[in-house]
């Protein structure tokens, strides 16, 4: 009897020594599926859910995570009532475990963001912000997920632009203080003592991820977003595996961690092309179909007393709206970016996206008179007429006797020619800011809002739409 007790005690002691000395050789596999910059995409959810559920049947520890920018980019979600609801619903059903707050998570405003965070069955994380001065509750900096006896830490970080905020409209982040992401990451080395693996779940672009890897080799993996980089063959930088899955859920990343005892002994990553996934979750497919038939897009937001009969008149409405949006001196719209020829009667959300389907961002910049002249001069058609509409003034194109352009003049609303020595605030779509090549000092700044949203926002506040028509450009034959 006593011998048996002694044997048991000795066995327990040996087992204890074995475990605490780290000689436990049991292997644990952890699979982490990841998406980033899914931008309100819905159509790939049935395949994603099937893939993840299939893996969960085979593997014990399977996570699904998002590296930010789940919103903005699909009117079916962005104009759903309430905004963003379908995306979170589908993320809940697909079994997401955590999402980092990307810059576009702020696009709907703090109140809607708080509602969507409340709706989510998974946490939104972010380390480099302080929401104390705002209405948004402070999110956790990190999440620790349990995989059996292992703990995996995910640290959230978001990019900042030159104004020190994420690239979204500043009004949507009022009262929130942000801190540089890479420097902030350095404060979380202690996570290595609290978890068996530390993963950066970042939204600041691939270049910043590689910088973070070079500074902090204690990260095991960085799953990134923002630059829409597709790492078809993810590599290690300074021993840190850095991966990112493109955008719009066209690819799903899969990271596999293998632990032996408490030690992470293997890490690998692959990309899975979503269109190549052979199954689809039927329940989620039915929901996607329902959400894609969004009645909110048929919502009447305004009414035109008089029809806008051509692109000239549509351009006046568009540019006047841009101009009012940021109190700009001038606003421009290229006619090629207006995709309908007229509009009349009731105006629905869908009509605005039909007129302006390209997802251009509104860009603001300060231009001198010579720079404005170059903008117009470089945009003239073969008949020497401007290919842009203007708000805030009028344009004259002067032709010499041989019909070549001798000068371009711009006048303000009082009819005075612009002053050479001052700068004027100007708004235009991002297409013009990039594709219209005119020499200038200020390249401009994205306003954090797409032009279609500017128009919808304006019409919702001013539903009786009308324009005061006037000829805004003319040719002067000298």
């Amino acid at each position: 009897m006593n011998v048996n007790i002694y044997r048991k005690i000795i066995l327990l002691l040996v087992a204890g020594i074995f475990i605490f000395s780290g000689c436990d050789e049991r292997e644990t596999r952890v699979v982490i599926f990841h998406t980033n910059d899914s931008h309100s995409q819905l159509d790939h959810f049935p395949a994603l859910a099937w893939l993840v559920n299939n893996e969960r049947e085979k593997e014990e520890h399977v996570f699904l995570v998002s590296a930010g920018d789940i919103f903005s980019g699909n009117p079916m979600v962005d104009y759903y009532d309430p905004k963003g609801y379908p995306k979170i619903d589908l993320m809940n059903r697909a079994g997401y475990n955590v999402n980092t707050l990307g810059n576009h998570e702020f696009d709907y405003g703090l109140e809607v963001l708080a509602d969507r965070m409340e709706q989510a069955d998974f946490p939104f994380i972010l380390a480099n912000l302080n929401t104390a001065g705002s209405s948004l509750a402070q999110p956790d900096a990190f999440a620790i997920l349990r995989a059996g006896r292992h703990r995996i830490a995910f640290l959230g970080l978001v990019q900042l632009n030159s104004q020190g905020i994420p690239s979204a409209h500043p009004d949507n982040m009022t009262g929130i203080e942000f801190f540089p992401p890479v420097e902030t990451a350095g404060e979380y080395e202690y996570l290595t003592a609290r978890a068996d693996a530390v993963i950066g779940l970042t939204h600041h672009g691939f270049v910043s991820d590689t910088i973070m890897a070079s500074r902090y080799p204690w990260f095991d993996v960085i799953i990134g977003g923002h630059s829409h980089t597709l790492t078809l063959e993810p590599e290690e930088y300074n021993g840190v595996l850095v991966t990112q899955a493109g955008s719009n859920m066209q690819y799903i990343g899969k990271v596999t961690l293998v632990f032996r005892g408490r030690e992470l002994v293997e890490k690998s990553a692959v990309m899975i092309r979503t269109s190549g996934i052979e199954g689809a979750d039927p329940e989620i497919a039915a929901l996607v179909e329902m959400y894609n038939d969004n009645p909110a897009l048929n919502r009447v937001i305004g009414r035109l007393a008089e029809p806008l009969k051509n692109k000239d008149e549509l351009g006046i409405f568009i540019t006047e709206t841009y101009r009012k949006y940021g109190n700009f001196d001038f606003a421009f719209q290229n006619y090629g970016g207006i995709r309908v020829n007229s509009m009349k009667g009731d105006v629905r959300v869908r009509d605005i996206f039909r007129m302006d389907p390209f997802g251009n961002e509104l860009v603001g910049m300060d231009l001198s008179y010579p720079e404005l002249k170059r903008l117009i001069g470089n945009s003239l058609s073969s008949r020497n007429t401007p290919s842009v509409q203007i708000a805030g003034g009028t344009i004259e194109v002067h032709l010499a006797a041989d019909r070549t352009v001798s000068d371009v003049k711009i006048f303000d609303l009082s009819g005075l020619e612009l002053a050479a020595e001052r700068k004027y605030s100007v708004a235009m779509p991002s297409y013009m800011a990039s594709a219209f090549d005119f020499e200038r000092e200020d390249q401009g700044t994205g306003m954090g809002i797409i032009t279609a949203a500017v128009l919808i926002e304006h019409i919702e506040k001013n539903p009786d739409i009308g324009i005061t028509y006037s000829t805004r450009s003319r040719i002067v034959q000298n």
Partner: protein
Amino acid sequence: MKVFVNDTGIDLFEGATVRDALNKYFASVLKRGEKDSGSRTGIIVYDQHGNRVMTDGSLSEDERIYFDPGT
């Protein structure tokens, strides 16, 4: 901000995407009277590490992207 397309430096507004960089690049190619590469569709763009980048991806200061002008 300045970014580089096929090692040619171009100035862009802050917040610009890969698509904006290509627009600007092609506009400057046309302005210089150089031979245009033709089709703009189906262009595959890579970063300096050889990773693919989607055309709606955000760019940051001094970033370098590449595409095969023959594509």
